[in-house]
């Protein structure tokens, strides 16, 4: 449905997108995740023809309207877009939502029916005559979503649609995105810096970093098998340890991380510079090195215990700093605090090894 080929966008001397290539299939929900300033909004604006790429091609439904400007209105009318900052026209809710249909010359009766339908869907039935500017941020964003939905676009682009909204509006908007895709088969591309939102909603996730997709895959792939240490950091892998493969054969390697030896499953051979990604929930902490056959077992000293919701994040210095997540009960049972001597253990299979550099 959408093809981006070597897309670059520069503003003056600042390169925002640097040769990005991606393919978004019809009927999928695709999340663009990435840190602030990584080019998420710019990419969506280029797709929606609000800006032109410095290099490369973007095709929507096969047409490259950047190259063929006479196509641009037709291509643009296949798409709807919701912006991060809720913006409504200074008129009633009804007129706000109706405007796209008016642009397309629809009849009064059809407009009334569609607008009322869509307002029901976004939970704003009965708001028709309210002035849109008097609504709350969450309600305005729902008006913006309704305004884009009512034209029944083939592609719906959403630029951080739930940033700065209250949890109720977030849940409602997420539910709408899900239903719109399921019931109408709308292709949905949304950007977010909330990686869990990407995980909840998307069929596929693209991690945008430094102007290119560092990784594209299913949420599971991206979250468990990040392609680089940067992606690992971004998707919330707490423990990223740099090292060098000391010995490796048959898919198992021993990695030297600053004097500490860690066994891991990896395809890399000796001498290769790598990063080890270990999710903190995979790391166990015990008072003594008990029976842990096959596991990496490292003694160390607790450097901090930080509460996090119903859990505690315990950081242990084993030569490298490793963090684990424990329930309060488990932390209390171990009787640990700063300075306690403990043993940290994790299975070689829990270590995801990526090449560094």
């Amino acid at each position: 449905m959408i093809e981006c080929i070597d897309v670059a966008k520069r503003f003056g001397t600042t390169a925002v997108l640097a040769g990005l290539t991606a393919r978004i299939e019809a009927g999928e929900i695709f999340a663009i995740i990435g840190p602030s300033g990584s080019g998420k909004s710019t990419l969506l604006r280029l797709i929606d023809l609000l800006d032109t790429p410095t290099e490369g091609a973007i095709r929507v439904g096969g047409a490259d309207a950047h190259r063929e400007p006479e196509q641009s209105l037709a291509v643009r009318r296949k798409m709807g877009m919701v912006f991060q900052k809720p913006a409504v026209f200074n008129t009633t809710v009804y007129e706000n939502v109706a405007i796209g249909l008016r642009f397309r010359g629809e009849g009064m009766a059809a407009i009334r029916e569609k607008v009322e339908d869509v307002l029901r869907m976004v939970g704003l039935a009965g708001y028709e005559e309210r002035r849109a500017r008097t609504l709350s941020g969450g309600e305005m964003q729902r008006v913006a979503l309704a305004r884009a939905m009512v034209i029944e676009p083939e592609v719906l682009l959403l630029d951080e649609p739930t940033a700065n909204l209250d949890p109720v509006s977030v849940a409602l908007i997420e539910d709408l995105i899900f239903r719109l895709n399921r019931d109408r088969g709308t292709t949905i591309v949304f950007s977010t810096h909330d990686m869990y939102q990407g995980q909840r909603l998307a069929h596929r996730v693209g991690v945008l970093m430094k102007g290119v997709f560092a990784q594209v895959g299913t949420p599971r792939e991206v979250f468990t098998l990040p392609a680089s240490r940067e992606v690992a950091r971004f998707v919330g892998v707490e423990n990223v340890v740099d090292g060098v493969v000391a010995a490796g054969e048959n898919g198992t390697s021993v990695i030297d991380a600053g004097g500490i030896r860690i066994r891991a499953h990896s395809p890399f051979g000796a001498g290769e510079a790598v990063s080890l990604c270990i999710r903190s929930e995979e790391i166990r902490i015990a008072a003594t090195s008990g029976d842990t056959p096959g596991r990496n077992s490292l003694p160390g000293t607790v450097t901090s215990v930080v509460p996090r919701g119903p859990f505690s994040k315990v950081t242990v210095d084993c030569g490298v700093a490793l963090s684990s997540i424990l329930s309060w009960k488990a932390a209390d049972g171990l009787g640990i605090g700063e300075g306690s001597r403990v043993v940290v253990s994790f299975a070689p299979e829990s270590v995801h090894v990526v090449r560094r550099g």
Partner: protein
Amino acid sequence: MYEIIEGIAEAARLIITLDPGVMSIAARSIIVSFTATVAATLISIPLGAAINFGTFRGRTSLINLIQTLYSLPTVIVGLLIFLLISRVGPFGFMRLLFTPTAMIIAQTVLVLPIMTGLTISALSGVDTVIRDTLHSLGATRLQFLANVMKEARFAILTAVAVGFGRAISEVGAAILVGGNIMASSFSGSTRTLTTAISLETSMGNIPQSIALGTILLAIALGVNLVITRMQHR
């Protein structure tokens, strides 16, 4: 001191009794300035839109020039129009000098820069997200322009109100090209609130001046109320 208090009392009487002399001057002032404002509106809105949406060389310089002309001295405009329509001027044959029409032309020219400038500000003040939204909803060029104008409507109305306020309160141009004539017929006269105040004060006719000044202030206040209300929409 006593004279001033007496002047105020007499002014109140002139206003309350709707003194025909005072009322006809007020009516003429409003008609002349209103007509000038309408004419300036018809020119400044399309002109402002063309400058705002246009992309041409010297656009920024043009906007700067327009903003400089906000404080165009009224007597300069009066002089300019005087030279154009005086007997020896290029439009002298139209015999417009010392007519209400001449005052309307002068006031139109006077308020054009500020109305055009404020129209440009009003249009460029429309949020970029609003513009992007219009494009993304599939607006044609014309639909886009119409809706940006619609979004800026209160700010544009403010520009119109400001223009009217400047027109009705100016004295320099009206006195130069109007001549402050009190003829027997309403349409043959060119005495307005400001020119009349200037004349009556110099003749020591203080009550008349205070009455006229009060009316002028009331009109200015009304215009200001309209502007304030617009800016809160």
